[in-house]
């Protein structure tokens, strides 16, 4: 028989808010890269503006967590969930900042002619968003195995990043006039690469919720 119905209802609401925040962040990444592809400055500005809402959502969830800790004395997996949510929303907020960073680069690029058709960068964005989505599914389903699997897939994003980096480097070596434009694209790729890293941190928290053990799953290769 469920006893703490009020507390567990509130905890569920917090989890739902985290899902809502994650979907805002995913949309931000998606739109920032779309703005880059389509040179859509209006959309880029929208991403920058929307980041305020993401930041606000993070504080809202944080407050709800503090409230639950202060008033409900959560224990065991409930406690681990709340502590993990506090980390997860920080990671989400930062991924939102990376999307905002990309949008700002789009504004900087403005109407400069494109250096090259964008192929790997949209791939990186797609992969990162997919990992993010699945990490939140793993959180909902308390699925440590799939969280670990997602961390392993971060290598794909790293590979794409290295590919983009090498390619842009060769552009710059061939023609120094491309340095500014190429550097901007490297920043974009770097923002995506960092976002995927943050998804792996979210996955580590999912594993902690399920197993109670804090483990660094994907040790940094840098």
């Amino acid at each position, binding site marked *: *028989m*469920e*006893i*703490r119905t009020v*507390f*567990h209802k509130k905890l569920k609401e917090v989890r739902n808010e985290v899902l809502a925040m994650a979907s805002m962040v995913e949309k931000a990444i998606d739109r920032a890269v779309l703005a880059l592809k389509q040179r859509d400055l209006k959309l880029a500005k929208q991403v920058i503006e929307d980041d305020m809402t993401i930041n606000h959502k993070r504080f809202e969830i944080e407050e709800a967590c503090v409230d639950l800790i202060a008033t409900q*004395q*959560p*224990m*065991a*997996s*409930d*406690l*681990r969930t709340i502590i993990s949510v506090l980390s997860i929303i920080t990671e989400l907020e930062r991924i939102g900042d990376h999307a905002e960073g990309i949008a700002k680069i789009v504004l900087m690029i403005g109407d400069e002619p494109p250096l090259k058709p964008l192929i790997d960068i949209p791939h990186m964005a797609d992969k990162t968003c997919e990992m993010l989505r699945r990490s939140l599914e793993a959180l909902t389903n308390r699925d440590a195995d799939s969280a670990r699997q997602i961390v392993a897939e971060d290598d794909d994003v790293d590979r794409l990043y290295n590919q983009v980096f090498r390619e842009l480097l060769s552009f710059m070596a061939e023609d120094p006039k491309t340095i500014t434009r190429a550097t901007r694209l490297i920043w974009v790729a770097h923002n995506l690469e960092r976002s995927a890293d943050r998804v792996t941190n979210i996955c580590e928290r999912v594993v902690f919720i399920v*197993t*109670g*053990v804090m483990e660094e799953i994907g040790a940094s290769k840098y």
Partner: protein
Amino acid sequence: MENKMQTKHLDFYYGKKQVLKNVSLDMKERQITALIGPSGCGKTTLLRLLNRMNDVIPEIRLDGDVLLDGENIYAAGVDVVEVRKRVGMVFQQPNPFPKTVFENIAFGPRMMGQKNRLYLEEIVERSLKVAAIWDEVKDNLDKSGLALSGGQQQRLCIARTLAIEPEVILMDEPCSALDPISTLKIEELMQDLKKQYTIVIVTHNMQQAARVSDRTGFLLLGELVEYSETSEIFGRPRDQRTEDYITGRFG
């Protein structure tokens, strides 16, 4: 760390009803062991077996051992009074004698034959100091113990237990009749006491168990489901039944 007390494969029956099932529990010296579990799980019964408080109840049966420093306290020839001297108990309701503060503390040593007034004064002062109530009662030692507040009465009862110089202190819901501030004072006191004594506490208040104890045992239907470091029990219990109980998913 040494085991001060242990139960080994303890089965206990009231008449035909089995209330403890194969309970093996190690209580480490100078640590606080907390026993938690729903009402009727057997935690108070287990506590009372640790100083033979259940002896007076008719139609009980006990199988298994209860060891104090490795000796079975239920072995033939063991002096019950001696066991209770070494293993003191503090109860749920503060229960001072209707006597002065001084006499409440001096009662035990007097019963054991101590007549020397100076020695008794010393023991009263020391016990009240250790129980963190000396400053509040030192000018009123001739006042009735019943005139004290509930929290003070409970600390007086702890001091009364200490006057016998026990090695183990059993506490049966020692704060359930107290206000939050008095509760916190007792909890603070327990941290001081454990430097010298081994403490076993039964509590319905899980947060209290989490705050004060070093190790926690979870009992359910007479069975010790899980026994571990307190941070493990409340942070990452291994047994689903413990998890469900402490997160309030069953009752």
